[in-house]
Structure formats: C-alpha cells, structure tokens
C-alpha cells in the first residue's frame, strides 16, 4: 500500500460503473486544476523518485523517454524561476498525459515481490 506509487482508490472506483460515472468528471477537473499540465509536466513526472524502485524503473525508460522527461523537468524549473506557467499552447494536452513510468515501476515491484517469495520459500518433500 505504501509503495512508490502511493495508495489509490482508482481500481475500486473504476470497477463500479455508477461511481466512475460520477467521479470521472471531477477527477478530470481536479487534474487540470492541480496545474502540473500548465507547466508542461506529465503526471508521472511528479512521482517521488528518491527510492530504489523508481530509480530502477527510470533506468528502464527508452532513451527518447529519458530525454523528454529531462526536458520537461528543466522547462518546468525555468518556469518556476519565472513564477509563471507556460503559454497555453505548450500545456500538456490530456491525451499526452499518460502513465509512462507506472508500468516499469509495477514491473520492478513485481520482481521484488518474486525475489522476496523465493528468498522465503519453504521447501517441502512431497
């Protein structure tokens, strides 16, 4: 629950048709209001990267993804210095705000869980 991806209720909300119908518009409004898109970020750029799992996952991005990520971070820190969001033409459109870092983080966590399982396996003679 307290992994690098944080706690989430999304799967529960998505599993219920009524709930997702009510909450999806609110979620979209909230994502836009949070303002990361105004600074050219994608949501996964905000993921806390100071832990071994995310570091490992970052190493698994393609060179193009790594370059784009570094570019977004630099551009956003420049805007932070200027105390101003980007011009609206450069805001991240919703279609581009994809979870590019989540799949490798999930993979790394699965591998860690498997290693833990093998490290603690109890062998029984059949």
């Amino acid at each position, binding site marked *: 629950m307290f992994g690098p991806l944080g706690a989430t209720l999304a799967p529960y909300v998505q599993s219920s048709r009524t709930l997702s119908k009510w909450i999806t518009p609110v979620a979209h409004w909230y994502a836009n209001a949070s303002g990361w898109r105004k600074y050219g970020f994608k949501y996964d750029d905000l993921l806390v990267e100071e832990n071994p799992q995310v570091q490992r996952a970052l190493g*698994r991005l393609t060179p193009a993804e790594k370059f784009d990520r570094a570019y977004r971070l630099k551009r956003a820190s420049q805007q932070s210095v200027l105390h101003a969001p980007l011009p609206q033409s450069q805001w991240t459109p919703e279609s581009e705000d994809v979870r590019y870092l989540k799949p490798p983080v999930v993979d790394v966590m699965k591998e860690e869980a498997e290693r833990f399982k093998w490290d603690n396996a109890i062998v029984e003679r059949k």
Partner: protein
Amino acid sequence: MLAARASSRNVQRIARSFATVIDTTGVKVAAVDHNQPTSSVTVLVKAGSRFEPKEGVANALKNFAFKSTTGRSAIGTVRESELYGGVLYSTLGREHLALTAEFLREDAPYFVDVLSSFVTSAKFTRHEFEEYVAPLVASDTEAATHDPATRAIEVAHGLAFRNGLGQSLFAPEHNELTVADIKSYAASAFSKGNIAVIGTGIDPATLTGLVEKAFEKASSNSSPSAPASKYFGGETRLAGNGGPQTVFIGFGTTGAPSSELAALSAHLSPTPSVKWSKGLSPFSSLPEGTSVQPVYLPYSDATLFGLLEAGKAAVAALKAAAQGIKAEELKSAVAKAKFAAAANVDTREGLINALGSKIFGGAEASVESTLSSLDAVNAAAFSKAAASLLSAKPTYVTVGESSLPYADELGL
C-alpha cells in the same frame, strides 16, 4: 525368461554403436544411457557465430539464455533449478549454440521444460538485455582480449575464412547490439529443423516423449544459412595485452574434416603419454620452457589446422611430415588420434561435441565411423594432406612484441 530378455537387450545396446538419432516432429533427438547417476540434456541450435547477421548477436543470444520466458521469470528459473539441484549453462561455438542442463535423473521433465521454454517462448525484454546480458557480453569480450591464444585463434579464423566461419565468437568492444537484433536472430534460428536435442544418462524413449511435447510449439519457418566456407589465409600482427608472446601458424582446408589431419595433429602433439617422458613428437627435442601446441579445429565444411606458439621448429616439422612419415610413426600417430577420439566420447562435453557434428547430418551418430576412417589413413595420404596444407597460403598471426618473426622469416 526375464534374464534372457534382459541380456538380449544389453547385446542390442552394445551393438547399437552409441546413439541413434530419432526425428520427432522435426526436432532431432539422440540419447545415450550408461546408467550414470546424473543426466544431462543439451539443446543444440544451429545458431553459432557463423550464422549471425550482425557482429556479436550470437554471443548476446548465448548470454540471454535462461532469462525470463512467458511462463517463468529469470529469477524463478534460477531458484527453481537450484532447488532441484541442477546446473544450467549455455555455450557458443562457431556452428552451434548449446543450452545444457545437468540434473538428477528424476527431474528430467522440469529441465526439459526450462530448456524448451527458452527456445519457444523467451521474452527478450529490453531491460534484461541492458541490466544483465550486455555486461556479460562485454565481459566475454574483455576476457578474450586478455588471452593471447584466444585472440590469435579468433583473428586467424577471420583471416582464414573471412565471413561465415571467420566471424568472431565475441561481440566487438563497442557494439551497437539491440534487443531487437537478438530477438529477430532467435526467431529465425529457433526453428524445428535447426534444433537437435542430445541427452546423456537418460532413456531415449523418455527424452523423445518429453521433447515431442515440449517442442510442439516451436516454429518451423526457414532458418538462417551461411555460404559455404572458402579458405583465404593471410598475415597479421597484433599488440599484446600482457600474457605470453604468441605466434599462430594456421592452414585451412575446405570440405568435410579429414582423418589425415586428425592423425597429423596427433603426430605433432607434444603431450607425452607417460609422465616424465618427453614423448615421441617432433617437438619433444625442443628446449625446456618452450612448447608448440597443435590446434585442430574441424567444422562441418572446413578445417583450420595450426600450431600455436610456433616457431622455426614447427614449420620444419610440418615440412618434414609433408616429405613423408615412417610407418611406425604413422602407426603411433593413428593410435593416439584414435584414443583421443574414443576417450573424448567418455566425457559429457566431448560426447556432445562428437554427436553435435553428426546429428544434423545423418541418422547414425557413432564413434566407430571416425575410428575406422582413422584406420584407413596411410603414409601416402598422410604426407599428401600435409603437403596440400603447406601449398596453400598460410594464416599467420602474432600477438605480442614487434620483435616476433614475420612469416617469411620462418620459411613459410
């Protein structure tokens, strides 16, 4: 009656040389059972360096062995094999890639599954390549650069055969391998006609059954092919990275390996048969601290024969052999070569090598044919083989200081 039956089966087993190749659903299977306590299964794929489309792909594929497949992750394969007490390894030759598992007899189903799942359903993920495989490829290359003998023989292959057999077993130091290259090479190489399974210490019927089930899903598309080998030869000098000063004089022939060259190699081999003896080889009179090592590397359609750490004495010995050989010298050389060929089959790796060279070709893979062809070697054919070697352009490689001799200084 039971006893009679058992004894007749034993007779059959002795008569049946040592392995019959069975073709199950396109995959060739051969197994030998000498009732050893442990078994081994080798999946032999015609995916050696001579077939690789890009330098180093074969080496990378070798190092990719036993990584994650759709059914099992890399760590799962390792830990589960450890729990069974098995050993997994992969080796690369110029002709074949061999994936081997050694295990206790009763665990055959699991290990055949591990081997076949890599062949049929390996994932070839990019992160595994970057995190685990690329460092192994680099360390293979690094280790090879520090061994002058390996370097000399690698370069000699390049000079002798240029492409095909001339391609290196190792990746270049600065390579541009990507996981897509490896994936496409594996997809073309891992096809049914390209795979043979060799078992030792396992009943042929059991292995055939397991293989039939395991390789059902293997693809049967066309496999990579290499053009027939051609011998060129040439001379080159490399700077040494430490290690002994090395000179390699090689000669190549094309066509199926001949038993005359095996006899010549045995004739020149300075390894004595008895401790504290200097042996009967022409090199036994060399001064202390120097040695000459004959190198005999037979491939399916070419042979590289050479002398490592050679000098003037080596060239003289070769020329003498081409002039003619005494009957008793030939007799002892043939006996030595026969013993080497027969004793080779006693070890697991030797058996796999012996079978591997024959299994793709014919139905019968036996050591008897090798032995009988050695018996047929006569003095005339022997010196003719040596003379025809010398008549071609030599492959000459030095690794070390610039003071090492040039080929013409040695009388080549």
